[in-house]
């Protein structure tokens, strides 16, 4: 199929339509709104369901109901809206149904601003909603990757009956890039999944889907089932991209936009003869634990770069376990780092000395004092 120039948000919307999206529910919020606007045209055109909900709370609970029917459903929002969705996120995780959610992150906390950010990493990767649950979190670094991961998200969500989040940001949602869209998949009929709530139609026993387990032993079993399923996902679904890591002395770890900016810096550093490479996690949940662990045993230092205050950094530190020094660099609150900034970090690290005893966040904050004031 021909490549076409598309805006990130619209490309995701069209990719979802082609992946067989049956129903979409959302609420306007920048920098995600084009996704909703696009689907407000496209879904009715195809005779599919589109509802602009009264709030993100309502939107996610519409998604909850729709997902219970076994239909392919999706919502999208940006950070403040995602916070409101946490109720439904927790209930859906407990109900073990497949759902796809797109978070086009913006600067926070609070109302923040509408510029790109990665500050909802912890909310998506380590909870957000109440209770013990996990969800798959995919992080695109380009418009094409947003398209591909949208299609993958539906398949993964259904394969494991799990919430699947595409953790994008304002720059990827807003940028225009050439991309290739998937073939149009036909819309599936009424679900035949053995759990789907479709009414009995006189063909089977009645069913119930809920998040309630009044007997604590049942709730414990459910929690353990969810955790065991997560182990399976960790074993099978880790995705990442590696650049120039084969002979690298130093490694950068960054996802999404931060990883993309880092790649430009890595290429410049390579041109200067510095042996630096990049690990860009595609799934931040499940996290590429093994890859980071192995990396930490063969490089002289790791630089974690994010557009938040070091949320993924904590995960990396837990995996590296002091095998090598870890450094940190971030711009945040809606500020996107320039490749030059990361390049000078590479220079600093290549020059050394590095120590495993330095608290990378604290050291970064000290350096930031000069930049931000």
């Amino acid at each position, binding site marked *: 199929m021909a490549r076409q120039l598309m805006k990130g948000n619209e490309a995701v919307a069209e990719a979802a339509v082609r992946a067989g999206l049956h*129903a979409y529910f959302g609420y306007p919020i920048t920098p995600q709104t084009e996704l909703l606007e696009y689907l407000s045209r496209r879904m009715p055109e195809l005779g599919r369901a589109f509802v602009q909900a009264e709030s993100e709370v*309502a939107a996610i609970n519409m998604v909850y*109901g729709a997902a219970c029917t076994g239909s392919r459903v999706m919502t999208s929002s940006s950070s403040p809206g995602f916070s409101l969705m946490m109720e439904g996120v927790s209930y859906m995780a407990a109900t073990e149904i497949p759902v796809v959610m797109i978070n086009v992150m913006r600067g926070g906390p609070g109302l923040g601003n509408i510029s790109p950010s990665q500050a909802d990493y912890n909310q998506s990767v380590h909870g957000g909603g109440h209770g013990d649950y996990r969800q798959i979190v995919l992080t695109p670094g380009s418009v094409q990757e947003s398209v591909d991961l949208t299609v993958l998200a539906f398949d993964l969500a259904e394969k494991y009956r799990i919430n699947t989040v595409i953790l994008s940001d304002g720059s990827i949602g807003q940028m225009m890039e050439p991309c290739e869209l998937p073939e149009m998949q036909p819309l599936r009929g009424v679900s035949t999944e053995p759990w789907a709530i479709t*009414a009995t139609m006189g063909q089977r026993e009645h069913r*119930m889907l*809920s998040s309630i387990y009044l007997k604590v032993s049942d709730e414990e079993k459910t929690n353990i089932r969810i955790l065991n399923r997560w182990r399976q996902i960790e074993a099978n679904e880790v995705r990442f991209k590696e650049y120039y890591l084969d002979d690298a002395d130093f490694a950068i770890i960054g996802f999404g936009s931060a990883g993309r900016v880092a790649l430009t810096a890595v290429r410049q550093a390579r041109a200067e003869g510095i042996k630096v490479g990049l690990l860009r996690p595609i799934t931040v949940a499940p996290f590429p634990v093994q890859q980071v662990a192995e990396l930490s045993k063969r490089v002289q230092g790791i630089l974690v770069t994010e557009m938040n205050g070091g949320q993924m950094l904590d995960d990396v530190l837990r995996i590296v376990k002091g095998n090598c020094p870890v450094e940190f660099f971030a711009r945040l609150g809606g500020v996107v780092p320039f490749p030059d900034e990361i390049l000078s970090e590479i220079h600093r690290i290549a020059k050394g000395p590095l120590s495993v005893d330095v608290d990378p966040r604290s050291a970064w904050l000290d350096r930031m004092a000069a930049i931000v004031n």
Partner: protein
Amino acid sequence: MDLPIQEQVVYEHPVALLDVSTHYCPGCTHGVAHRLVAEVIDEMNLQSKTIGVASVGCSGFIYNYFDVDFVVAAHGRAPAMATGIKRCLPDRFVFTYQGDGDLASIGMAEIVHAATRGENISVIFMNNANYGMTGGQMAPTTLPGQKTTSSQTGRDVEQQGFPIRVSEMLAKLDGASYVVRRSLHDPKNIRQAKKAIRIAFETQLRGLGFSMVELLSVCPTNWNLTPVDSMKWLEDHMVPYYPLGDYKVHPAVAEMRI
């Protein structure tokens, strides 16, 4: 000479209602309302295409009593969840069953917008003037002066505001097609309640949009009254504040022949 014996069935267990005992307190009207819903489902032959949406409150376990598919919504979100289901499966019959705390407090936005969208779902709204499940706290429908565990000297409207008359409020919305209030305090009213449920369900089946039947209900346990006294309390106190009647009947609904 043997006279032919004329048999007439006057009582049967509704097919849509499972033959189990409920967890409801003695004298609670949830059981009455369940039975009415089940009878209407039977009469309209809806059982196989029905999807119920339970809410959070005493009736949260309604799925244990009906032989139909059910989901359980988060507190107040049943109309949103029903919207999601109905938009995916428009030819199924979808109803929510909600208490007054659920519908008129935490779920106010969801019910108002489902109604104003003209969402083609039916809502059974149980108004028992308190939060039953959590032990009888003040609800948005608690009457002025009514004692609850969180308005212990009686609801003081200066501090705690006034009750909400939900049917009157939703009736103002163009999207709402059938909004009525009935009561469950005596057989005559119960029969009228059933008729209203029938019309509400027909409204949905004919694609005429949002329908809601508000049912004035008792909560003997939390009201600290006997079942009989609580029926009297409902009639004496709730009916005057919440007048029974048809608040919105779209002409297309009025024309329906049932």
